[in-house]
């Protein structure tokens, strides 16, 4: 079943700098989509299209070897951003009424 849940092809902004990678493998631990894999003590992208750009890998890389333009994959967030003129983010603040199941 999981294999069917794939989003658009060739859109992901994930980038690696293998020179900086120390092979600590923390990124492979935090990735919830099995995108990354350690090969010969360096990180490798094995499932690029499965990346959801959550930013867990880049946030937890102490060596700046991974970068990704992270954000919420949520259309409602984009609509809110257009209306309020802000950045697209979940309407999940304490006072904001979240109108979708965003979170």
């Amino acid at each position: 079943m999981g294999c069917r849940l794939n989003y658009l092809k060739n859109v992901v902004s994930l980038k690696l700098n293998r020179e900086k990678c120390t092979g600590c493998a923390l990124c492979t631990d935090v990735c919830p989509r099995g995108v990354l894999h350690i090969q010969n003590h360096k990180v490798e992208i094995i499932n690029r299209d499965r990346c959801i750009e959550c930013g867990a890998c880049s946030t937890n890389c102490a060596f700046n070897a991974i970068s990704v333009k992270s954000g919420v994959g949520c259309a409602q967030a984009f609509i809110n951003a257009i209306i309020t003129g802000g950045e697209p983010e979940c309407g999940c603040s304490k006072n904001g009424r979240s109108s979708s199941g965003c979170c």
Partner: protein
Amino acid sequence: MTSLDCNKPETKSCGCSSGSGKKMLIPAIPPVDKWGHIKCRISDKFRMNYAVEPGLYSIGNPGESSPVLVTANYRLACDHLRKAMEKSSAWVLVIDTKGINVWCAAGKGTFGTSELINRINCTKLDTIVKHRSLILPQLGAPGVSAHKVTKATGFSISYGPILANDIPAYLEAGKEATADMRTIKFPLRDRMILTPIEFFAALRKYVWLILGLMVFMGIESSGILIKPAFVNSWPLIISGLISVITGSVLFPVLLPFIPFRSFALKGMILGIIVIIPSLLFYDKIYYGNPFLASASILFNITLISFIALNFTGSTPFTNISGVKREMKFSVPVYISMCIISSILLIIFKLQKWGVV
């Protein structure tokens, strides 16, 4: 950069303000609240306020070498953790995410590095446990830089499994999670559990649409009349309601089985399948009027596709780049379809008035 920010409720709950010599009283995490779970699956408002006070809690009888599990102050998260750890003892460090779940709060940064550092300091965790390691939920990782927390507090971070239920197995294996525990899934049960929230959110907006439609249908040369408002609106109200149910309930359930990867396209396919058969009752539903029929069909397919596109935010496999691309092609299509639909509806109205 962030100074210690022990806000009022926190100071009260962790009781760490004074008397370092005294033994601290650490509360047990509150019991599981089943009725609350149901309510927060239905009401956004309830869910948003379904919070636990941030601070340090206990499960069972933890000692100075027991593991420290970190979670959000979302009540459902604490409940899951409590249930999973029923037979064990652990500390639970509940950090302030404004009552939002781990995954969303991490995305927003409230389940984040600075709040975690702040909460470790506030609760004087270093005086309670001897070891210097924390276990964080894997889905909290987008908000937390493990190395920064370690640098600031001395506590090292291990990311546990995605699901709380897997924590005992993870601990037993010496803090090793299997690839399966680390991969997010979106089974039917998870998709279904989201549908009430999706449905009520869509319905609330739909009510306004109905009111607008009834006013439009009721406009006669002699003013807004109640009878035509009802008679001419009800077929559209019913088909619209079917669209709301299709988009918010049927779409999530069928998600993996609808062709194409784009949610907007998936929604359009499902919309066509559900709405086109209404033509079988062309005379009854649309009074045999081609303008009313095409206006309604166009609008309903758009509505289903739009609700489907909004579901991107509720799934764990979409990404911001993809949604951006989808919006780029779908929003102009939606707007044009709505305009065409409105024009057709106006023509229908003018026909009724005998103008056309």
